[in-house]
């Protein structure tokens, strides 16, 4: 934006306050640009920088929120921990294999990400619209995908804190012992699971804006069934065909299953694909979801500009 440009006839260079400007008014003067045309033509580097800064900017409120609202420790950490605990006690009462306790603990940790994706990714743009933010996002020069990615990055920081806390506390309290053979693949699967999950959330975000108020019902509809078919608290292989379908369609299901196989090698075959195959499924999901998210966002913006309703508050 600071690129030199040709001064517009009759106009002063915008960044230079005229000699008559009162000293107090100088604060109004921003970055110097010679003309609107110079200010409008950005280099590719400026475009990239703008998009990267926008990601950081949109992630900021979520990261900052961690310290502003400590109530999340109770609602997002202790309460889910109680749910996890109840399954642990059930499995202990049934004398289930020890690895099942670990399955539940990993499932409990991943719940934080799923809730974040559903409530703070998928439904977020809809809330942003009601708040009047969506209009401002579209009126700003960055690619709105940066906003979605920023939301995802902020959400990841928020949820990771919660997930790690649940994982450590539960591991310590219930004495879970992991048997990991392929650290690299486990870490890759974890990262891919998050990428696919947040890509899924980004894709849903535009759909929720287009579908309007039904988004809330959809969010509620999705939460529990996905918990179930993803095998959050039990091995998804037990679900047979439904489990296989979930592995093919739901990133949480395939990611969880792969991580369990890699973190508890001693449990033997689970009746589901090998972890490296599931990693490939996650790669495919990430590419498809993020590609769809980009396309849907663009479609949503075009439709909003045509119809005049989608980005406008309360319409």
């Amino acid at each position, binding site marked *: 934006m600071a690129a030199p440009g040709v001064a517009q006839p009759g106009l002063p260079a915008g960044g230079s306050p005229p000699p008559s400007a009162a000293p107090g008014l100088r604060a109004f003067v921003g*970055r110097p640009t010679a003309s*609107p045309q110079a200010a409008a033509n950005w280099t590719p580097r400026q475009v990239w920088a703008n998009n990267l800064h926008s990601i950081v900017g949109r992630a900021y409120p979520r990261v900052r929120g961690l310290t502003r609202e400590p109530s999340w420790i109770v609602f997002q950490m202790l309460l889910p921990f109680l749910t996890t605990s109840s399954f642990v006690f059930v499995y202990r009462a049934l004398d289930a294999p020890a690895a099942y306790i670990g399955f539940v603990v990993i499932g409990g940790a991943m719940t934080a990400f799923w809730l974040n994706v559903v409530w*703070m990714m998928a439904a977020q743009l809809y809330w942003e619209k009601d708040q009047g933010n969506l209009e401002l996002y579209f009126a700003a020069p960055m690619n709105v995908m940066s906003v979605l990615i920023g939301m995802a990055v902020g959400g990841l920081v928020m949820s990771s804190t919660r997930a790690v806390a649940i994982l450590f506390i539960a591991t310590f309290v219930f004495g879970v012992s992991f048997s990991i053979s392929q650290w690299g693949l486990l870490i890759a699967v974890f990262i891919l699971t998050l990428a696919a999950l947040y890509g899924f959330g980004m894709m849903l975000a535009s759909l929720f804006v287009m579908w309007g108020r039904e988004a809330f019902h959809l969010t509620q509809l999705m939460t529990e069934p996905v918990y179930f078919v993803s095998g959050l608290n039990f091995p998804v292989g037990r679900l047979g065909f439904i489990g296989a379908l979930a592995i093919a369609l739901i990133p949480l299901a395939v990611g969880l299953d792969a991580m369990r196989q890699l973190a508890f090698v001693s449990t033997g075959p689970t009746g589901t694909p090998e972890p490296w195959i599931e990693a490939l499924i996650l790669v495919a999901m990430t590419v498809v979801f993020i590609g769809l998210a980009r396309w849907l966002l663009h479609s949503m913006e075009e439709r909003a500009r045509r119809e005049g309703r989608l980005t406008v508050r309360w319409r």
Partner: protein
Amino acid sequence: MSGSIQAPAIDARGITRVYKAKPKDVTALAGIDLEVAPGEFFGLLGPNGAGKTTLIKILTTLLLPSAGTARIFGFDVATETRKIRRIMNMVAGGEQSGYGILEAREQLWMFSQFYGLGAREGWRRVDELIDAVGLAEQRNQRVSTLSTGQRQKMNFARGLLNDPWVFFLDEPTLGLDVSAARSVRELIVGWRAAVPGRTVLLTTHYMAEADELCERIAIVDRGRILAIGSPAELKRRVQRESIFRLELDRLAGGPGGLARLPGVVSAVAALNAPADPDAPVRQAVVINLVLREDSALAGVVAALDGLGAHIVALAKSEPSLEDVFVELVGRGFDDNEEAARSNEVPVEPHEAGQPDPEEKR
């Protein structure tokens, strides 16, 4: 023409916007032609439902016109959106943007990142603007705790983050008390003084605000521009005669005597003056005097001497923009509210109790 050096700041040709609605489509704009020069402070004055906001949405690239073209400094609003978004900004009245969980300074910094400022540059610019708009004491206050006036000042600062070449202000003082509205107007004037050459498009339905701030005004009603001109030019359209308010210490025989003088169209006692023409002596007589032209006033003053009346005060009355609107439309703004309501785009009711998106966690 794309981003031409000689391009007008705003150039709209035949802009029409029709909203699909039931039972029938709503025409919000019906062929708007508008040209705003670089550096001009231009106002769109009209009642609710006139189409002002729809026009701003089109010019800010948020809405496509159903027909016609619009360019900002030569950039097409339909196809060159990105370029336009780099050089413009917008602030609306009653705006509740951002996140209540953030402090004012943080919120502005977040927005600065969307407009191409770097991280450190963003903080520096935010601190400058916070001081400039008079929010120094609230810089570390949560947005959710700011008053309406403070919030609008913060919104104004947000609008200046990218140093826009075109600044769209959509009813910026809507819902503000007198003092806060004045502060916002002073900020607008202060910014213009500091950075001349920037273009402002202001929509308002406050006549005095348009009169005070705008160099030119378009009067809009039901999606059409009825008249464009400077406030003085618009008023001259309805001022075919010279109108004076004349206060006298006394006037024997009443104002009827003045009405018969050459060049006097009418001389009528103002409402607070006694109206009995037979009263021999009156105190502080106030007369609304309508003359064919200013030069007729000399004859009136000479006649008053003969009637033994002395002038206590004399003021020339200017027609207001409301008079202009009434002349053009045949009704006032208030009368128009009801008519406009039937022309509004249907809106869904606000969902009460909607949480702050970032606080819902």
